[in-house]
């Protein structure tokens, strides 16, 4: 029943697929119930926002952007991309975001248009983190099948700080694209943003639900949503920033860069119906509601807690209807509990495939007593391995249930001779399973070398989860399924929300030395002028007191309002009268002045203050009014 004037709407199959029913994000139902992301702010951390584009303008947060403009003046002034330069792909991502969630406010933080450092990433991840709810990041380390990189010290600290202090303490939501390195056999576990526990890692599937050629697999992927596939399949309709076709639109956008903001939009829908969802609530709801579907290439495995996961599709397709209905009745998960094993020194050789090195660590009930950790969310393994050709290594992690995660895939293009130095791999495939038991790390060398060359120096296991028991998880699964009919999705049903914390935010705007100098100069001038004016007033009053003419005859002070005296608002005034001089005789003979004579245009143009001040002048002869007009006449 929702209608749009966007002529491209019928082509946006990912929103409403009429050709292959079900192959869309299932969002129209929540739109019909007025859930459009209202009150939620999504910021696209990328290369800027072309906010004048018609698709974005109504959703662009002008107020905040004005504030930003001060801070990022240099960049903002240059924010429209230069025609002829490589097209900034994020410009296309934003309409994808806005179209899935057209009630939200969107913003941009520009980080990718120049040199980028760890500290800049850290600033970006926490920028206005009490205003920005969701950070959509469709970028990362090179997807070239040989890079192993991720957030450095400050970026990591900022992500952690964001989930602790962002969004009034409910935690910033960081959505990241899993990567476009599929054709290079890249894996998103070699991308530290994608395998961070603080991010929501989103992959792409094509209209048929298959993993496209560019998409990357990994054990830490949470879910997938739609984007373009090969040439025979439809891509994403979005804004064409360079207007080369003259329409301002393109139907050819693709890649995980289109998928991640769609997910950000769906999370915004969730936050509208339940603003107090924490960052972990959002991850849980995705895990609980993402849908497994028929794809024989995906190798779905159902874990002990009943969640199906595939390295290709995470827990499955994001479904806006399911996400929003689950969010509506979701009560927060218990606190994050964790367990860190000691650093396990191994110094063992890694055999050639098909043989493998297997190391174990048992996590006992006593180990978990302190934290209360019972069921798992993320499981991370930090390894140090020496190997002359890093891409030949394959790492698998087995949870106590036996659930296998391929955390490190071989990569033919990765010939780095330095191995892994404290690199953290992670998996979500054991989500909801019991934490207690024996974890197995299996490493093997699939390279062509004829002798053993790799050595597992050390490893460390980190478990994240909560005090939820397997029963609690099953209960929550049942509760959510009961809500999927949409029976709670109306305004009358609202679960109470805690108020959130008041966390002050550092305003990044600092006064430049030049501004400071100008302010000091203006300040000095003001002080000087004030002293001068006070002296002048003082001296003129002294003159009044000592003026012979006043002493020798009556001197009429202007009438002062009694009320003004009482209120203390009486203004300093000087009696506008003088002793008679030769001209005065003639003036007096003209009789009392009329009001129109007195209220010269200059006076009329002034406000009440001036008129009240000059009331006294009305009692005085007209030549004193001349004084008000700037004529130099002698006064008392």
């Amino acid at each position, binding site marked *: 029943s929702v209608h749009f004037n966007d002529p491209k709407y019928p082509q946006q199959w990912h929103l409403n697929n009429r050709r292959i029913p079900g192959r869309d994000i299932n969002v129209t139902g929540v739109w019909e119930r007025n859930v459009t992301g209202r009150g939620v702010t999504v910021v696209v951390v990328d290369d800027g926002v072309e906010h004048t584009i018609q698709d974005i303008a109504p959703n662009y947060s002008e107020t905040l952007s004005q504030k930003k403009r001060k801070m990022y003046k240099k960049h903002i002034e240059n924010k429209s991309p230069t025609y002829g330069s490589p097209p900034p*792909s994020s410009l296309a991502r934003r309409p994808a975001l806005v179209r899935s969630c057209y009630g939200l406010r969107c913003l941009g933080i520009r980080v990718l248009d120049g040199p980028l450092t760890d*500290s*800049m990433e850290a600033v970006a991840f926490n*920028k206005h983190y009490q205003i920005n709810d969701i950070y959509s990041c469709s970028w*990362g*380390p090179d997807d070239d099948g040989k890079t192993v990189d991720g957030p450095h010290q*400050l970026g990591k600290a900022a992500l952690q700080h964001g989930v602790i*202090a962002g969004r009034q303490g409910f935690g910033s939501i960081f959505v990241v694209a899993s990567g476009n390195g599929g054709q290079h056999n890249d894996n998103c576990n070699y991308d530290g943003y994608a395998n961070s526990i603080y991010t929501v890692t989103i992959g792409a599937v094509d209209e048929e639900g298959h993993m496209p050629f560019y998409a990357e697999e990994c054990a830490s992927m949470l879910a997938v949503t739609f984007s373009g596939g090969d040439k025979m399949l439809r891509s994403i309709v979005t804004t064409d920033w360079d207007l080369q076709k003259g329409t301002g639109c393109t139907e050819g956008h693709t890649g995980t860069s289109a998928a991640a903001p769609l997910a950000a939009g769906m999370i915004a829908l969730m936050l509208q119906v339940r603003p107090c969802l924490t960052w972990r609530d959002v991850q849980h709801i995705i895990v609980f509601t993402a849908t497994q579907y028929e794809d024989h290439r995906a190798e779905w495995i159902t874990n002990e807690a009943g969640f199906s996961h595939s390295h290709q599709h995470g827990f499955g397709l994001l479904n806006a209807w399911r996400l929003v209905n689950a969010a509506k009745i979701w009560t927060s998960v218990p606190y994050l509990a964790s367990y860190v094993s000691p650093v396990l020194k191994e110094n063992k050789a890694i055999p050639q495939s098909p043989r493998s090195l297997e190391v174990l660590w048992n996590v006992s009930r006593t180990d978990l007593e302190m934290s209360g950790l019972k069921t798992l969310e993320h499981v991370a393994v930090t390894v140090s391995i020496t190997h002359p050709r890093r891409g030949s290594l394959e790492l698998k992690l087995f949870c106590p249930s036996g659930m296998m995660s391929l955390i490190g895939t071989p990569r033919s293009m990765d010939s780095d001779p330095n191995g892994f130095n404290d690199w953290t791999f992670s998996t979500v495939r054991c989500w909801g399973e019991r934490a207690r038991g024996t974890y197995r790390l299996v490493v093997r060398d699939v390279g062509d070398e004829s002798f053993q060359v790799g050595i597992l120096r050390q490893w460390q296991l980190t478990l994240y989860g909560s005090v939820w028991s397997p029963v609690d998880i099953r209960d929550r699964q049942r509760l959510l399924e009961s809500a999927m009919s949409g029976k709670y999705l109306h305004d009358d049903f609202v679960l109470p929300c805690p108020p959130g914390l008041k966390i002050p935010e*550092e305003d990044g705007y600092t006064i430049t030395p030049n501004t400071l100098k100008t302010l000091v100069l203006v300040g000095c001038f003001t002080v000087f002028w004030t002293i001068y004016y006070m002296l002048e007033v003082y001296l003129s009053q002294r003159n009044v007191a000592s003026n012979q003419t006043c002493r020798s005859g009556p001197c009429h002070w202007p009438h002062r309002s009694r009320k003004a005296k009482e209120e203390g608002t009486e203004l300093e005034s000087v009696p506008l009268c003088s002793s008679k001089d030769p001209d005065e005789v003639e003036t007096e003979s003209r009789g009392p002045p009329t009001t129109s004579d007195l209220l010269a245009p200059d006076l009329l143009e002034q406000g009440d203050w001036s008129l009240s001040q000059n009331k006294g002048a009305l009692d005085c002869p007209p030549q004193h009014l001349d004084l008000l007009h700037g004529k130099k006449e002698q006064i008392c």
Partner: protein
Amino acid sequence: LAGTGGPHGHGLGGPSWAVHLESLEGEGEEETLEQQADALARAAGLVNAGRIGELQGHYLFVQPAGHRLLLEMEAIRQQVEAVLAGHEAVRWHSEQRLLRRAKR
């Protein structure tokens, strides 16, 4: 993100260091840390470009721009590293390097 610590973003142009300070007077007020950061930056021949975003105790020190020979730069680096490494309030420090980040 002009003014947030990129090698060219802050307008000073030289190399930069991220420094994590802990207050020498226990639970430090932001102002005390700021003063401490100013003093430390001066001691290292750098300029304190301010706190790094919302990360308390983290500051960015930058080397003012200027034409310097490679050898000079190396000497400056060593001097800065020595000052930062030897200071009791410095919990962690790192010279800021350019990161390779690609759009997807």
